[in-house]
């Protein structure tokens, strides 16, 4: 019983990996962010811009990879895409403490793609755009 459950779960995860478009060359992710430079920032949400073409949210904190402290800007998916995944615009609130995993902007600014958000209570939300690199 457990084995068939595990097998089903494994198959489901595999199917998700298979059906979601993998890292195909997406022009704006590749042009704007570096998939080889991870960023991990823990801090407080200062602002949320739930707008097209990609949402942005700003977290004041320190990146544990580079040690850089800033008001970090994170880019994520479009509002429509997130809504269809069940992620609503109130998922991030000013004042929330979050940890964000993403990939650094190529231009050296304190910005990144922000694919994974972990809340203080351990909840995780995957906010990446369709072909942004998804942090594990």
């Amino acid at each position, binding site marked *: 019983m457990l084995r068939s459950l595990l097998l089903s779960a494994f198959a489901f995860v595999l199917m998700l990996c298979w059906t979601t478009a993998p890292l195909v060359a997406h*022009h704006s992710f590749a*042009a704007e962010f570096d998939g080889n430079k991870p960023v991990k920032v823990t801090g407080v949400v200062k602002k949320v811009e739930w707008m097209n*073409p990609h949402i942005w949210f700003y977290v*004041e904190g320190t990146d544990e990879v580079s040690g850089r402290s800033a008001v970090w800007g994170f880019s994520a998916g*479009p509002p*429509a895409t997130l809504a269809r995944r069940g992620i609503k615009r109130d998922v991030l609130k000013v004042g929330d403490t979050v940890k964000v995993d993403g990939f650094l902007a190529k231009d050296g600014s*304190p910005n990144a793609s922000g694919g994974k958000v972990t809340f203080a209570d351990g909840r995780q939300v995957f906010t990446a755009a369709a072909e942004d690199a998804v942090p594990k």
Partner: protein
Amino acid sequence: MKRNFATAILISIILALVLGFALTSITSISVSAQNASSKPVPRLPNGKPDFTGTWDHPRVADVTKDVKGRCVGETPGCSNIGSGELAFTPVGKSDNERKDKWDYGAHCMPWGYVRSYQTPFPHGYVHHQDRLVVLWEQDNAYHVVPTDGRPLPKDLDPTWRGTSVGHWEGDTLVIETAGFNGRTWIDTAEHPHSDQLKVVERMSMPDGDHINYELTMEDPKYYTKPIKNTRVFVRMKAGQELFEYSCAENNRCEGGNCAAADVQKQGK
């Protein structure tokens, strides 16, 4: 006598297997068995299939490749059979390989005709007897296709999304589109096209929840052979509509330059 009979049986079995395999291959290109629905095809007053609705499509970032599984708007059951390797003319090859391609989409120019069907944003149709109106969530753009069988005009003004006309062949709508300005790509993989591109789409509904969509692109200036894709679109769940889209409203990091947001300028 017995041997002839056994041989006949064997041949029949082999023929049946071959025919069965061929038939299932053909139908699986259209709608895979587990996704076919029993919903009837809605009809226009003139009896032709009515494509009206909100439709999900496969993410096709590269027209040469196959795609199968979840559609861009989370509906299951989309697919694309890609073209395989592209055959460029010398001019097409050199345009494809240039290092200074300008990413028009990242700067919020119109995405283009074929490409708008291939993005992470679904589309819709409003279908009347005399026209099919295409609605793309990508760019929130619309496109009108008259379906009275008129010919494609000569001397078309070059535009981002071209000019289309449609006619019926039985229950298949055939749309021809030309008059492109050549400034878009045919996919996210940046495959280019010229102003000579002509697009033919053939659309039919095997059941009320699916559209079989065959795309053929011919561009003799850039490609020596037609480029073909075969896709399945799936009707989105009742109540789902297209969202608003605006490329320009908050296009931070445009072209790789991330201007500081106001909240990033304060104090720190």
